[in-house]
């Protein structure tokens, strides 16, 4: 996937010391931009993608030929208005859309596989920070992202407290819960149990652990939706049949839907990347980096925070988002918070949820006016 000619790449020359102790250098970061950087260079927004996202935020993704993952929110006249703002997004390291990851080759020209160093959310944002130098941006107007993107937002402002005016973590957490880790482990086990995984060395042959990766995706997909949303969309509706077939084919629409989600995912995602990125999420515990005091993570920033959660998100529920608000309030930070009413579960931030999109737009545009 990293040989695609549509992928813009920055080669980071500077060595980056990873949390695992290893150091990487001369590594690629694949990125995409939307809109244009103004002469004052004060209109840049760095967007961080979630677990299975990539740098192609909006428009048609040139690799998959599908809509970008945040097309509802980003584009001309949209919430993140690319007529006004310069949007940058890069593929996380460990990913599989051109940034340095397990499908890359090591210095001996052997594909890394699981020999790729284990990376963390901290490593991801430290790598992406190089994009600011690349574009000559001293201070971003905003950083935002949902889910794992939100974790990167929190880590970024903690690492670089004066590098963004506004900070918008969405549907996220400051620390992966036992339930979050459990679901990720389920996905990893599905991948590693696939006979084609071969300890991560599958890329050297033509076979890959597609079955395992599809199961991982199916399980994860359920966690992105709400019970009510699923019930309303699928209920017990049958898939192209009048009655139950008394077998294990997909009788129900929900089964067929999940199988489809699994099958399209394996076409665009690398199983080893899935292992690496879920691991990074599991290791994320921002408070732990500050001896258990989350407020300390934000003590040096004057940025304006706006935190958004969704009523039906049970993966990163409102309370976990509110914990971030509480940590910020306890140090007198400038923080706003809204919980958006939505039946669409954790995925709400990716979907057409008008209250969410208008809150995001209003916050950005009003904050920009005050610039």
């Amino acid at each position: 996937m990293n040989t695609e000619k549509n992928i813009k790449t920055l080669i980071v020359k500077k060595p980056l010391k990873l949390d695992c102790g290893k150091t990487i250098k001369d590594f690629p970061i694949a990125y995409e931009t939307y809109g244009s950087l103004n002469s004052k260079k004060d209109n840049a927004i760095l967007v961080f993608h979630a677990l299975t996202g990539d740098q192609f935020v909006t428009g048609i993704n040139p690799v998959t030929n599908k809509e970008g993952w945040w097309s509802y929110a980003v584009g001309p006249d949209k919430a993140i208005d690319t007529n006004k703002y310069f949007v940058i997004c890069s593929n996380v390291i460990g990913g599989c859309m051109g940034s340095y990851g397990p499908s890359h080759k090591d210095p001996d020209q052997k594909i890394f596989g699981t020999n790729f160093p284990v990376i963390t959310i901290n490593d991801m944002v430290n790598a992406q920070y190089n994009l600011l130098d690349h574009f000559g941006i001293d201070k971003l107007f905003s950083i935002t992202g949902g889910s794992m993107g939100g974790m990167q937002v929190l880590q970024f402002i903690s690492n670089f407290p004066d590098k963004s005016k506004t900070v918008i973590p969405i549907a996220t957490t400051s620390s992966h819960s036992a339930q979050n880790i459990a679901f990720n482990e389920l996905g990893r086990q599905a991948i590693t149990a696939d006979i084609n995984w071969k300890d991560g060395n599958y890329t050297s042959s033509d076979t890959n652990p597609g079955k395992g990766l599809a199961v991982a995706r199916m399980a994860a997909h359920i966690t992105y939706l709400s019970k009510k949303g699923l019930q309303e969309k699928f209920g017990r509706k049958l898939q192209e049949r009048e009655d139950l077939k008394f077998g294990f084919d997909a009788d129900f629409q929900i089964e067929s839907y999940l199988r489809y989600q699994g099958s399209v995912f394996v076409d665009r995602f690398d199983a080893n990347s899935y292992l690496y990125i879920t691991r990074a999420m599991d290791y994320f515990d921002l408070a732990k980096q500050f001896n258990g005091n989350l407020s300390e993570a934000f003590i040096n920033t004057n940025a304006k925070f706006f935190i958004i959660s969704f009523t039906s998100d049970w993966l990163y529920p409102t309370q976990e988002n509110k914990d971030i608000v509480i940590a910020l309030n306890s140090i007198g930070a400038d923080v706003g918070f809204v919980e958006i009413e939505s039946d669409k579960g954790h995925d709400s931030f990716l979907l057409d949820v008008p209250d969410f999109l208008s809150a995001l737009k209003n916050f950005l545009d009003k904050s920009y006016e005050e610039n």
Partner: protein
Amino acid sequence: MKNEFQVIADLIEKDKKVLDVGCADGTLMKFLKDNKNINIRGLEISKEKVQECIAKGLTVIEGNAEKDLKQFPDKSFDYVVLSQTLQAFLNPELVLDELLRVGKKAIVTIPNFGYWKVRFHLLFKGTMPITKTLPDEWYNTPNLHMCTIKDFFHFVKSKDIKIFKSLALNNLNSSIINESNLGVKNLFADLGIFLIEK
């Protein structure tokens, strides 16, 4: 902007840090921000009102004053404002304590149940009073703990809360309340505005 907000705004000096508890659509916040350079935050329970505040560019936190004030450190605001909401809480005494913990000073306004129109309504109609400041029916009012200016005055005194200023508001007229005119003000004001500190 309603007269009540003008009176509240007049009590707050420029460049202060203020928390508006139950800030509704942010009208007072916006006025304070634009006209007095106030570093203003709001706490509001209604999702719709929160959205209206965001659209005005105001920093607002969706939350419930009875649960969410505890996240703010002691004396972290110069003023905490609570407009016509105290009577709607399950436990107004706790909320009042919290306001005075979080704010160096608090400005609390209460719809006066001792207002003569309210008394007349109950006395002659024999039904629960409905006035401009008490517009709801008994069965759908958010108000749980109605009180009079006199009640509130005595209540804060009994809690050793210092009253810096208490004002009676009747339509466009505001006037000072003191011990000696308390009975009269309690009859003729439909709103009481108190600047207090503990």
